[in-house]
């Protein structure tokens, strides 16, 4: 909805006043309790914990406030605040107590009494709520000693676990909007572009294109009207860093966009958010409204005479809209289909005007560069990929969640040190279970054991046929079938192909059919050759990034798991035992007691045998449903 822009400009709030007044109010509060209110923790009931805790604090006579007001002269015992996603979603709901630096995990409403009576009133630790490292069984007190946090370098994500994302004053108190003011009042557009270019910031959405260069290219375009777009259409399955930044630190994105607008000379911008992220949409809308009321968005920002207006638009469920030209079409109210480039959006973007499109994490990194310096920013990361990167670490790993590490860190450190190692299907830590990591979602590739010590950055990953992508890291254990994974991604891209260009529309369908042939036992060696040919052709001939990278998971499987995929077609055998059609269930005669339980359970009467004599399975009739193995008490049925 368009707010009316008719009113007189709101004078920008004095950042120094907010810092001082908020600081004074906050200093009068003895303790701060932060309850994570990211999507994950909310799903686990963190809002209920917040409510019960608030009541309990009142009941025991502790003076608790939920929002810190400016110029609050009174002293308070506790600031009970909510934060965005703290990244450790699996252990949620998370509750942090400061300044004690205690982190309680999996907190339920029933734990509130102990937290208040023991920890807050008597200074004792509630041991059962501490995080216990799954492998070593050792308990840890807080962020400073939990390996998951200790081994990260959180810069972009740091405020996400601390700030109340719905309170703009907190962001300002932490130094927020000072970089925007510097860009608007002290720097020329060229200087802003140069500083970001010198920092070497590269687009975090997947492509890795240098951000400063993108801005320079847009700045030099003629024309009065230009746009800045924040691409928050984070569609890669298994990636949620942009969601977390939007939920946890929305003002950093707005500030990044103001700086981008200054750099290219734009006065209007859009945040294009996936509608699958309702909480992120709410938070960013609230942040935009608050920024407008504080004069941080609108006309004459910081008295510089510059204007910047921001609109929030929700997507409608199309993965291809993450592609910049498709995203622009979607904002214009069209079907979200990409178009050939050039012209690039920098030349002709939204409504034909020069447009810069940056990803959420990229924009959230921009204030960090300007508030320190390009040199400072380059201190982290590698020469070609400076800075840090957030990754969504998920799958068969002990600690799943959102992490931030400098570029150049190894996969081993991420999976085994931060992630706490690989787990088996039952969720137990398993020493030799590592099989592969899928990186970069449906456009990415696989990293295997041989890549565990490869320093991860944009260029090293490209060399081994993978890509950073948006930063999804899905760990897979030995029980995962790589052919099934390739099929999973192909199904995804085939579904999401917009249908405009033939190579992608038809090619993804053909690749999916070939993968189905392999999984269902119809594959031959020829199938593999054909699959590779189609994959290469689709990669070369497709119009946009979706099609160009759609074959990557297939090619990665062929490259790194050739033996596994050949076993499917030559031996008709799935080494991981996941492909149903290739299963060969049998009853081990020496274990079978002839109890007839399986025979009774079989829905297709495929099991024969006399009572108290070993049974057999008729492979012609068997539908491989596995019902027999479930009821067998003697583990006599194998191969399903």
């Amino acid at each position, binding site marked *: 909805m368009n707010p009316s822009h008719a009113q007189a400009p709101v004078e920008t709030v004095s950042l120094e006043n907010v810092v001082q007044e908020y600081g004074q109010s906050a200093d009068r509060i003895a303790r701060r309790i932060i309850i994570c209110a990211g999507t994950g923790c909310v799903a686990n009931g963190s809002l209920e914990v917040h409510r019960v805790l608030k009541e309990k604090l009142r009941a025991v006579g502790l003076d608790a406030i939920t929002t810190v007001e400016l110029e609050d002269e009174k002293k308070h015992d506790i600031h009970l605040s909510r934060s965005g996603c703290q990244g450790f979603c699996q252990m949620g709901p998370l509750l942090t107590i400061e300044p004690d630096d205690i982190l309680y995990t999996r907190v339920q409403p029933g734990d509130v009494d102990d937290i208040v009576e023991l920890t807050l009133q008597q200074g004792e630790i509630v041991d059962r709520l501490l995080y216990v490292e799954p492998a070593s069984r050792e308990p840890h007190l807080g962020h400073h000693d939990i390996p998951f946090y200790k081994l990260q370098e959180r810069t972009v994500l740091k405020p996400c676990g601390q700030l109340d994302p719905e309170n703009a004053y907190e962001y300002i108190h932490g130094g927020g909007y000072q970089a925007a003011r510097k860009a608007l009042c002290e720097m020329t557009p060229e200087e802003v572009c140069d500083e970001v270019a010198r920092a070497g910031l590269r687009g975090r959405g997947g492509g890795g294109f240098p951000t400063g260069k993108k801005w320079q290219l847009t700045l030099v375009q003629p024309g009065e009207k230009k746009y800045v777009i924040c691409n928050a259409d984070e569609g890669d399955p*298994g990636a949620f860093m942009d969601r977390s930044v939007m939920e946890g630190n929305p003002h950093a994105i707005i500030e990044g966009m103001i700086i981008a607008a200054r750099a290219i000379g734009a006065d209007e911008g859009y945040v294009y958010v996936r509608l699958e992220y309702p909480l992120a949409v709410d938070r960013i809308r609230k942040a935009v409204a608050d920024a407008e009321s504080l004069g941080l968005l609108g006309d004459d920002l910081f008295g510089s005479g510059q204007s910047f207006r921001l609109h929030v638009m929700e997507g409608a469920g199309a993965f291809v809209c993450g592609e910049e030209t498709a995203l622009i079409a979607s904002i214009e109210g069209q079907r979200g289909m990409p178009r050939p480039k050039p012209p690039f959006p920098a030349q002709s973007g939204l409504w034909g005007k020069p447009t810069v499109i940056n990803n959420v994490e990229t924009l959230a990194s921009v204030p960090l560069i300007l508030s320190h310096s390009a040199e400072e920013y380059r201190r982290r990361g590698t020469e070609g990929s400076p800075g840090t990167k957030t990754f969504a670490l998920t799958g068969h790993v002990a600690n799943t969640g959102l992490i931030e590490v400098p570029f150049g860190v190894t996969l081993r450190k991420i999976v085994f040190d931060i992630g706490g190692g690989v787990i088996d299907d039952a969720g137990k830590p398993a020493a030799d279970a590592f099989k592969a990591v899928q990186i970069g979602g449906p456009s990415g590739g696989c990293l295997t054991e041989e890549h565990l010590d490869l320093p991860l950055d944009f260029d090293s990953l490209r060399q081994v046929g993978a890509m950073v992508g948006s930063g999804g890291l899905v760990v897979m254990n030995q029980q995962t079938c790589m052919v099934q994974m390739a099929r999973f991604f192909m199904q995804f891209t085939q579904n999401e192909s917009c249908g405009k260009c033939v190579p992608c529309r038809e090619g993804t369908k053909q690749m999916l059919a070939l993968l189905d042939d392999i999984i269902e036992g119809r594959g031959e060696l020829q199938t593999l050759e054909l699959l590779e040919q189609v994959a290469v052709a689709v990669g070369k001939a497709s119009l946009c990034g979706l099609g160009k990278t759609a074959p990557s998971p297939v090619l990665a499987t062929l490259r790194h798991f050739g033996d596994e995929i050949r076993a499917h077609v030559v031996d008709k055998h799935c080494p991981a035992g996941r492909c149903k059609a290739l299963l060969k269930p049998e009853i081990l005669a020496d274990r079978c007691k002839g109890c007839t339980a399986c025979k009774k359970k079989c829905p297709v009467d495929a099991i024969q045998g006399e009572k108290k004599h070993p049974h057999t399975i008729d492979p012609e009739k068997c539908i491989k449903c596995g019902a027999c193995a479930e009821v067998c008490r003697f583990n006599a049925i194998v191969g399903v």
Partner: protein
Amino acid sequence: MPETTQPNETPAQIRHFAKVCDILDRYESNPSKLIPILQQVQDEYRYLPEEVLTFVATSLGIPPAKVFGVATFYAHFTLEPKGKYVFRLCDGTACHVKRSHGILEALYKRLNLSAERNTTDDMLFTVETVSCLGACGLAPVMVVNEEVHGEVTPEKAIALVDRIIEKEANT
């Protein structure tokens, strides 16, 4: 003759379009706001009725084919009514490797549904998959209307269905 001026409209149909008119007004009948307009229409009706799409096209001064083109392009839009409880099961990578498929099959079986027929006859349940809900730390994840459920198992999903059926029977 355009559908909107048919003289034999019932009062219910007129009210029907009154809501659409409100939405169109909110966006000043701006054709570039077609997607937010359709989102609001769908929020109102739980789907996009065909006659409403034609009405929207006429009001925005664009061909109905364009409106249908947009409505059928985006996964969020549906031309069929959905159930009162929409189960959206995440089939993102993390959920997939943690066996979200078993949950889908269990729900299909319990509600007698399939990928082709995903809404129950009593219009109570719709079961669909979405690509990624971004709550991968809690995989497998399922969203029922707006409520997120993490670490779902087939048993938990069925128990939820049963609770809803019981609740609906008592109201």
